[in-house]
């Protein structure tokens, strides 16, 4: 094993260190109002993490089959010869290496960007609250380090997720990133105007993700029950084995090894290990169990990766500051589902039904979200739905078995979507500045929404850098060659065209809409005339923000190089083949179809042209309605995102609330309290009270719990009285004990 591998724990511990520094010394580091120290430290730690990820990449070049670096035993319980142990082992293979590079690379850039952005954001908050300069400084001293502490924690958690070598460690990362997401969505939970909405958005994300996590937990339990282990390698090896042989044989073959290294679940559950896949009284076929496991895993993925039916949290999550949306809700965390499915590719290969379901859900999400994005006005929401849609592409790809395409798109999407979010942040930043400049002149009004595209327009003159990078990102997303997005999307479409025409058609339509809404956005935001004073006074962001944008723009342009579908240039496919057993690696010449490429490019260009016709030729005027409104109800339908939230409200939330109310007020209060307690028990009690004496009443009313409590308390105070304080008494107690022990031993002896 290359000794470089042993550095891998640092990839997690650098960000963790950064978090600790910012938690404990953050306030000290904020020496003055413009201090950037906490952000610099956080970015430095993220950068070091990236260096480690690069080193891992280098080490993997020599040993592409990957290694597992043991770090510590998380817990281990042994009973006799049986052991349940969950190690925290770092899995360094080509798949996790790609994830690490994306997470730390994009993460570092966004950390740097956030230094500038959060300064502005906190100033904005301070002015919103009308704080004095001292109070504003205090706010900054508290919030600036906190933000970077959360950010670093997120990075560490995400890295735990992608480097864990078993499902449980992955699940720990899974939950931790969820926590960070929650904390960061509600970062401005105390915003005087929208604070409550921010915290509600955080809660929504958390609750919706709980549903997905329920699936994950169930899947983990099933995996454990079926295979007796949670280690990736062991699970997959045993799954492969069970495909042909019975559970009996597969688990018996390596029973000796299991006792040594892996958990033995019969210890926990008391069921025999050596039966066909049995759950106590139920016995299921291997196929069924695999479908159950993979579908439950899919439920987890739909939660974290915002797919139908659980995608509703992601648009609301845009309440968080912009770097959060970029890093967590576009580039990294939401791709955890794709990573997880790719990691579990062996399991999905054995459950074709689940794989198909994955593909359908992905394609449907891609299309639905793309249509919704067309009718949004909030610049961030457009991007949020676009993210959902693109995640749908990836999910569809992995569902079809195109793991390479999925991961490829994951990487390029991380580049261009982070770029888009960050430049949108730059736009909002600029607009807010413009708003301030005008607000001081008396034009300001509190209802002004700096994220509404209808309030923008004509920004190209004021933000020269931003517009360039934005257009690069938009074209990459739209899939225009030779930008990164084209190559990855094309690979997905090619996979789809080969395996499932329906999916291919859905995705192609979604791609058309993608190009359209991006065109719409660009025309609306950057071209035409400024529609508000704020837009007219917007200005370019500082270099600390634009530099990462430029780097990301470069990546979004040339990112396709990592996996060009021509012969030996198919690097990523070769790379992933080492760790993804069921990755499609097309034979030479089959990796590219000119037909698919031309169709998608032409459609994208057509969509852009259409958007130019609608929005470019006749720029939106101040107060003018969106031209698409001609579609009438259809537009409203899309604008209200297919009424998903309303449907959930009607189908789940309202019945649930009704049930809760019914239980609380009717059952608990009226029936139990008013009727049973007040009428039945009390009348019964009153009746008996006439006969029985007072002390008995008390016992009945307070019920058994209090009765036992009082019994214990009574015993307690009575026993306490043995504690007289006399040494002689204590000595007597000792003597009593001695005699009892001696007597017991003698009796025991002479009795037999």
């Amino acid at each position: 094993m290359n000794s470089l591998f042993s550095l891998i724990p640092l990839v997690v511990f650098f960000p963790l260190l950064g978090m600790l520094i910012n938690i404990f010394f953050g306030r000290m580091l904020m020496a003055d109002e413009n201090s950037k120290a906490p952000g610099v430290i956080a970015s430095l730690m993220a950068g070091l993490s990236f260096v480690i990820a690069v080193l891992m990449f280098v080490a993997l070049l020599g040993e592409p089959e990957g290694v597992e670096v043991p770090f510590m035993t998380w817990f281990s319980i042994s009973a006799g010869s049986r052991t349940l142990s969950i190690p925290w082992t770092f899995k360094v293979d080509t798949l996790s290496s790609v994830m690490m590079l994306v997470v730390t690379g994009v993460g570092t850039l966004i950390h740097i960007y956030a230094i500038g952005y959060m300064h502005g954001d906190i100033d904005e908050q301070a002015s919103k609250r009308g704080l004095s300069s001292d109070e504003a400084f205090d706010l900054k001293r508290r919030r600036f380090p906190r933000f970077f502490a959360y950010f670093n924690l997120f990075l560490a958690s995400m890295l735990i997720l992608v480097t864990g070598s078993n499902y449980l460690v992955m699940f720990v990362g899974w939950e931790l990133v969820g926590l960070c997401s929650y904390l960061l969505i509600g970062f401005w939970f105390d915003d005087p105007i929208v604070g409550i909405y921010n915290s509600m958005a955080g809660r929504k994300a958390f609750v919706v993700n709980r549903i997905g996590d329920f699936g994950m937990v169930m899947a983990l339990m099933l995996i454990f029950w079926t295979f007796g282990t949670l280690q990736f390698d062991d699970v997959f090896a045993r799954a492969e084995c069970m495909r042909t042989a019975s559970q009996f044989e597969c688990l018996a073959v390596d029973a000796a090894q299991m006792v040594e290294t892996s958990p033995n679940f019969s210890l926990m559950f008391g069921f025999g290990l050596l039966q066909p896949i049995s759950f106590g009284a139920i016995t299921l076929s291997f196929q069924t169990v695999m479908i159950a496991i993979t579908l439950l895993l899919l439920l987890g993925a739909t939660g974290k990766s915002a797919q139908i039916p659980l995608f509703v949290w992601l648009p609301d999550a845009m309440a968080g500051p912009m770097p959060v949306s970029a890093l967590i809700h576009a580039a990294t965390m939401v791709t955890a589902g794709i990573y997880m499915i790719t990691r579990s590719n062996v399991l999905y290969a054995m459950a074709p039904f689940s794989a198909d379901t994955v593909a359908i859900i992905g394609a449907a999400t891609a299309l639905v979200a793309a249509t919704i994005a067309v009718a949004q006005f909030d610049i961030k929401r457009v991007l949020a739905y676009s993210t959902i849609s693109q995640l749908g592409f990836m999910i569809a790809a992995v569902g079809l078995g195109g793991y390479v395409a999925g991961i490829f798109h994951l990487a390029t999407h991380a580049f261009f979507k982070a770029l888009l979010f960050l430049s949108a942040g730059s736009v909002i930043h600029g607009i807010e500045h413009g708003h301030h400049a005008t607000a001081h002149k008396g034009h300001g009004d509190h209802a002004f929404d700096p994220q509404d595209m209808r309030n923008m327009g004509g920004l190209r003159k004021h933000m020269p850098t931003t517009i360039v990078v934005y257009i690069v990102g938009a074209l990459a997303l739209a899939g225009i060659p030779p930008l990164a997005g084209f190559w990855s999307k094309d690979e997905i479409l090619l996979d789809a065209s080969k395996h499932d025409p329906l999916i291919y058609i859905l995705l192609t339509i979604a791609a058309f809409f993608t190009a359209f809404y991006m065109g719409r956005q660009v025309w609306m935001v950057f071209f035409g005339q400024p529609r508000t004073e704020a837009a007219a006074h917007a200005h370019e962001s500082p270099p600390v923000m634009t530099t990462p944008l430029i780097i990301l723009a470069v990546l979004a342009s040339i990112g396709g190089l990592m996996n060009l579908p021509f012969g030996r240039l198919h690097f990523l496919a070769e790379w992933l083949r080492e760790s993804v057993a069921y990755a499609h690696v097309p034979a030479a010449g089959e990796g590219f179809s000119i037909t698919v490429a031309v169709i998608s490019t032409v459609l994208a260009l057509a969509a852009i042209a259409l958007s130019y016709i609608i929005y470019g030729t006749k720029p939106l005027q101040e107060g003018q309605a969106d031209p698409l409104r001609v579609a009438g109800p259809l537009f409203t339908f899309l604008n209200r995102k297919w009424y998903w939230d309303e449907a959930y409200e009607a189908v789940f939330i309202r019945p649930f609330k009704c049930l809760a109310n019914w239980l609380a007020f009717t059952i608990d209060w009226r029936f139990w309290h008013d009727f049973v307690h007040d009428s039945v028990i009390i009348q019964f009690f009153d009746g008996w009270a006439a006969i029985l004496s007072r002390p008995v009443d008390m016992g009945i009313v307070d019920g058994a719990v209090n009765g036992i409590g009082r019994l214990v308390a009574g015993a307690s105070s009575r026993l306490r009285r043995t504690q007289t304080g006399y040494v002689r008494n204590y000595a007597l107690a000792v003597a009593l004990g001695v005699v009892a022990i001696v007597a017991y031993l003698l009796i025991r002896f002479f009795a037999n």
Partner: protein
Amino acid sequence: MQLPILESINLMAVLPVLIIAGWACVLLVFDLLIPRSRKHWTAWLALVGLLGAAVALFFQIGHFARLGSEAAFDGMVTVDGFSIFLQVVFVLTAIVGVLLALDYLPRHGIERGEYYVLLLFTTIGMMIMSMAADLIVVFVALELLSIPLYILSGFAGMRETSEEAALKYFLLGAFASSFLVYGIALTYGGTGTTRLTGIAQAVTSDALNLPLTTVGMGLLLVGLGFKVAAVPFHMWTPDVYQGAPTPVTAFMSVGAKAGGFAALIRVLVTAFPAIASEWGTLIAVIAGLTMLLGNIVAISQSNIKRMLAYSSIAHAGYILLAVAAAQRSENASFAIGAVVFYLLAYALTNLGAFTVAIAVERDDGTGTEIDDFAGLGKTRPWMALAMALFMLSLTGMPISGGLVGKVFVFQAALQAVPGDPLLLAVVIIGVLTSVVSAFYYLKVIMVMYMREGEGKAVLPLALKTVLAATAFGTLVLGIIPGPVFQMAQRAMLK
């Protein structure tokens, strides 16, 4: 006969003990040179000695992980993983004991350099307890552990309660020791040796004298049961804990108990495996009684020190349960691991809880009522949070070392049930009394957060450090118990 040569004495094996012993003697002289107003220098010097021992222990860990065990002093003591693990606990406890006293003693006007010297001496006693391989050594180490504690209990001599505590502890301790000696005598009568391994051989080969040995074992239980505060030898505990200066209470609630258990485990498992079912049953019954009494009486306590005293009795019960589980040789190693792990978790948690009690205590020794904790949730949020964590850990709630310790103990006991069905009943008692214990532990949390009060506390840096370290340790044991438990399990008797 020939005097022992240096090799058979094997000084390196007992190096940590020698460091502390030598340093204590040196410190005694140094202390004379340190002016009265600078007595904290003595404390820092004592810390230096303890850290030296810690370093020596650190090097020994690796050594004994490889070699297993080594005898020293002609087989009078055995140094193995078990003793090393416990020595680490003792040294850590002693370090905490010094840090806790650093500020407490001057505040209460009882600052004297001898405090630290005595602390070092009692630590030696504990350390030797953990490695004793001969009943004579057990006895002398027990006295070396106890006598400094008697003195330390009376350290606040101007307070009557402190004096009373010292006298009670001394009288009862002497009384219990006499039974221990009688037990040693009977065992010697029955086996002709005091060496633990020799006893084990004699017990299996000589059935005729078995009754003598068995009763001797029973009396040994009395002496050691007194140290660990098991029912019915527990009655000194509340009075002494309440009367003694709080740092001393903190120190002995952990150190003396762990020392007692160290000797108990080693004596029972090494010397009396042949009569395991006898002591197993006895200890199981004692464990049940101890859990019941400790938990139930703790409910009606209003003084935090008394409450923690009964709590410490209750916890002795839980640990005894694991000791009883060690009767079955197949899972003795798991049971011993559970004991050792529980001791560590309990040490961290209890030291933390006492640290908070010290911070709340006022200079005149009052302020030890639970009601004095009212309002701390607002005035001292971090300290209150730590205290809440300690209370939850003592109850056995998740993410705390207390829970994991209890799980291991109960698991160990359940595994031994096939050998001794009585254990099942005791486990049930243990689970039920854990529930009962929530009542009085949560009361502290409730008072801190729900009740209005001044919430005054003095929290100098030393206490903060201890608080942070113990809270961190409690959490770590609760979240990633794996590594420590593996070490604890490897800490078998060799």
